[in-house]
C-alpha cells in the first residue's frame, strides 16, 4: 500500500477507528440503498471515512462495474488505505453481477467424496479465481472460506456454505482455497471460530447455544481452523455462538477465553481476529453497539465488523481505554496487526475487461458439472406438459430471469404450461393444477424452519399432490 503512517502519529481515536469496518451498499446512489438501517448514505459514509478514519468497508449489492467505481471512490476518500471486504464465499458473482458465481462450497465436498485430489485442485482454482476477480474490482479482503464443519443437516445458517460434514475434507478444501487465494495480494478469512457447523438456530436472529465440550471441538470443529492458520490465513472471523463449556457467560465473539485464550494463545494465531457482523441479532439484541464493541475488543478482536453506529462504537472503545478498562497496548497491538495486513496489499488496480474472458467460468462450470447427482431414466419429451417451479419467494428469485434455462428449456420438450409455487401459494389452489406430465424444479437452500426438508408447506403439498395425481 502507498501510505501507512507510523502508529505514533495516530491519535487514540484514529487508532480505534482503524479497527472498525463499516457496511455500505455497492451501489453508488443513495436512492439505490437496499438496507437503509444498515447502509449509510453517501454523505455519512464519506464522513466516517474522511473524518473518522474507519479502517475499512464491507460492500453488498451492485454490479461488478458499480463496485469497482465504489472502491475507487472509497479509497479516494481515505487517508490510510481501506480494507475493502465482501462475503464472497461463492465467488465474486455471488454478490456482484457480471463477476463469476460459483456453486456453494458443499459442491466441492461432494466431488471430494468421489475424488479428493480433484476437489482439492478445484478448491485451489476457486480460491485463486475469487481472489483475482475481487482484486479486479478493487476488493482486497475476501471474507471466505467458511471452515465450519456442517455436521447438522438442520443447520439454518451454514448448511451448503460449508465444504462438508467431515473435518478432514473441510480442512483439505479450505486450505486449498486459501493457498489459491494467496497467490494474489488479497486477505483471506477462516470463519466462524470456534465453529458454527452444529447449530440449529440462526445467529442472524438469536444466539445459538452449542453444548459441546473441548474434546469434541478439538476432534471436529477445530482441525480446519488449525489447518487454515498453518496455511497462513490472514484473518479468523468469530462466531456469534454460545459455548458454555468454554465460556459460561459470553458468546464467542465477546469471549476473552475463546478469542485470546484459545485462538490467539493456544492455536498461536497471529493474524487479524475479526468479529462477525455486530448488527446480527445474536449480539445486537443483547448488548448495544457500545458495549458489544468494548467487549469484543476486550475479548481480543482486532476488527469490529459492521457495528450499527460506528462513531458510537469508536467512542465507546476510546472511553474504555481512557477509563483503564482496556489497556492502551491492546489497541496498539490490534492496529499494528491491521497495519501489517494493509502493508501486504497493493494500490487499487481495476481491471474491468478481466470479466470478459475470466478463467473463473471454466472452474465454476467444472465444479457445477462434477457435483451433479443423477438418478432414474431419461426425461422423455411430451406433447403437453407442465413446468412447475417451486421457489421460496417468487418475487425474490433473481435466478429465474427471462432467458434462464429453467424457463427456456422445458417448453422445448413440451412442458409448456408454467406453474410457480412459493410460500404464499394458497393450498386450495394446488388441487386445481393441470393434470398433465410435469417437470418439477425445486429451488431451495434448505431452511429447516420451513417444514419438512426445508421446504415451505405449499411446496410439500405440491409435491405430494403430484405424487398422488400424476404418477
Amino acid at each position, binding site marked *: 500500500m502507498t501510505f501507512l503512517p507510523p502508529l505514533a502519529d495516530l491519535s487514540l481515536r484514529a487508532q480505534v477507528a482503524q479497527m472498525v469496518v463499516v457496511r455500505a451498499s455497492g451501489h453508488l446512489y443513495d436512492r439505490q440503498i437496499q438496507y437503509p438501517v444498515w447502509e449509510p448514505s453517501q454523505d455519512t459514509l464519506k464522513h466516517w471515512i474522511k473524518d473518522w478514519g474507519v479502517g475499512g468497508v464491507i460492500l453488498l449489492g451492485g454490479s461488478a462495474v458499480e463496485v469497482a467505481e465504489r472502491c475507487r471512490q472509497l479509497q479516494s476518500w481515505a487517508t490510510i488505505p481501506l480494507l475493502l471486504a465482501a462475503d464472497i464465499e461463492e465467488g465474486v*458473482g455471488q454478490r456482484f453481477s457480471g463477476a463469476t*458465481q*460459483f*456453486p*456453494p462450497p*458443499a*459442491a466441492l465436498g*461432494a466431488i471430494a467424496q468421489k475424488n479428493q485430489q480433484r476437489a482439492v485442485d478445484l478448491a485451489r482454482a476457486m480460491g485463486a479465481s475469487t481472489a483475482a476477480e475481487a482484486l479486479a474490482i478493487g476488493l482486497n479482503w475476501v471474507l471466505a472460506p467458511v471452515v465450519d464443519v456442517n455436521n447438522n*443437516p438442520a443447520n439454518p445458517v451454514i*448448511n*451448503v456454505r460449508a465444504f462438508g460434514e467431515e473435518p478432514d475434507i473441510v480442512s483439505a478444501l479450505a486450505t486449498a482455497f486459501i493457498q489459491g487465494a494467496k497467490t494474489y495480494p488479497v486477505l483471506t478469512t477462516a470463519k466462524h471460530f470456534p465453529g458454527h457447523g452444529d447449530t440449529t438456530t440462526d445467529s442472524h436472529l438469536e444466539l445459538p447455544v452449542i453444548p459441546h465440550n473441548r474434546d469434541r471441538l478439538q476432534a471436529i470443529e477445530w482441525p480446519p481452523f488449525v489447518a487454515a492458520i498453518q496455511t497462513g490465513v490472514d484473518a479468523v472471523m468469530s462466531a456469534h455462538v454460545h459455548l458454555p463449556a468454554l465460556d459460561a457467560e459470553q458468546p464467542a465473539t465477546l469471549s476473552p477465553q475463546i478469542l485470546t485464550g484459545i485462538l490467539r494463545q493456544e492455536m498461536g494465531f497471529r493474524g487479524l481476529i475479526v468479529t462477525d457482523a455486530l448488527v446480527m441479532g445474536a449480539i445486537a439484541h443483547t448488548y448495544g453497539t457500545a458495549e458489544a464493541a468494548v467487549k469484543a475488543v476486550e475479548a481480543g478482536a482486532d476488527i469490529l465488523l459492521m457495528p450499527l453506529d460506528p462513531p458510537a462504537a469508536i467512542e465507546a472503545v476510546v472511553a474504555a481505554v481512557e477509563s483503564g478498562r482496556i489497556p492502551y497496548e491492546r489497541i496498539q497491538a490490534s492496529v499494528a496487526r491491521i497495519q501489517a495486513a494493509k502493508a501486504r496489499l497493493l494500490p487499487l488496480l481495476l481491471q474491468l475487461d478481466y470479466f470478459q474472458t475470466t478463467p473463473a467460468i471454466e472452474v*465454476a*462450470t467444472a465444479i*457445477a*458439472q462434477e*457435483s*451433479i*447427482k*443423477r*438418478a*432414474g*431414466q*431419461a*426425461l422423455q419429451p411430451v406433447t403437453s406438459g407442465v413446468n412447475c417451479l417451486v421457489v421460496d419467494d417468487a418475487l425474490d428469485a433473481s*435466478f429465474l*430471469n427471462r*432467458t*434462464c*434455462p*429453467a424457463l427456456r*428449456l*422445458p417448453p422445448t*420438450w413440451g412442458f409448456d404450461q408454467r406453474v410457480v409455487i412459493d410460500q404464499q401459494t394458497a393450498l386450495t389452489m394446488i388441487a386445481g393444477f393441470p393434470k398433465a*406430465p*410435469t*417437470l*418439477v*424444479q*425445486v*429451488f*431451495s*437452500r*434448505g431452511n429447516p424452519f420451513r417444514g*419438512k*426438508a*426445508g*421446504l415451505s408447506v405449499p411446496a410439500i403439498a405440491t*409435491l405430494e399432490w*403430484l*405424487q398422488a395425481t*400424476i*404418477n
Partner: protein
Amino acid sequence: MGLVVYGSPYAYREIAQQLHPNLPHVFSYGHDSTAQDLALACLLQATS
C-alpha cells in the same frame, strides 16, 4: 414426471427417497443459469 432440485442436498435426499427410482431426477448445488443448464441437460440423459 421429472424432478430437479437446486440448492439443498438435504431437500433432494428427502424428496428423492419418496420417488419411484425410475423417475428422472437430478440434484444441482447451484441455482444460477449454469446450474440450470447443466442439470436440465443431465435430466435428458439416461443414467449409465
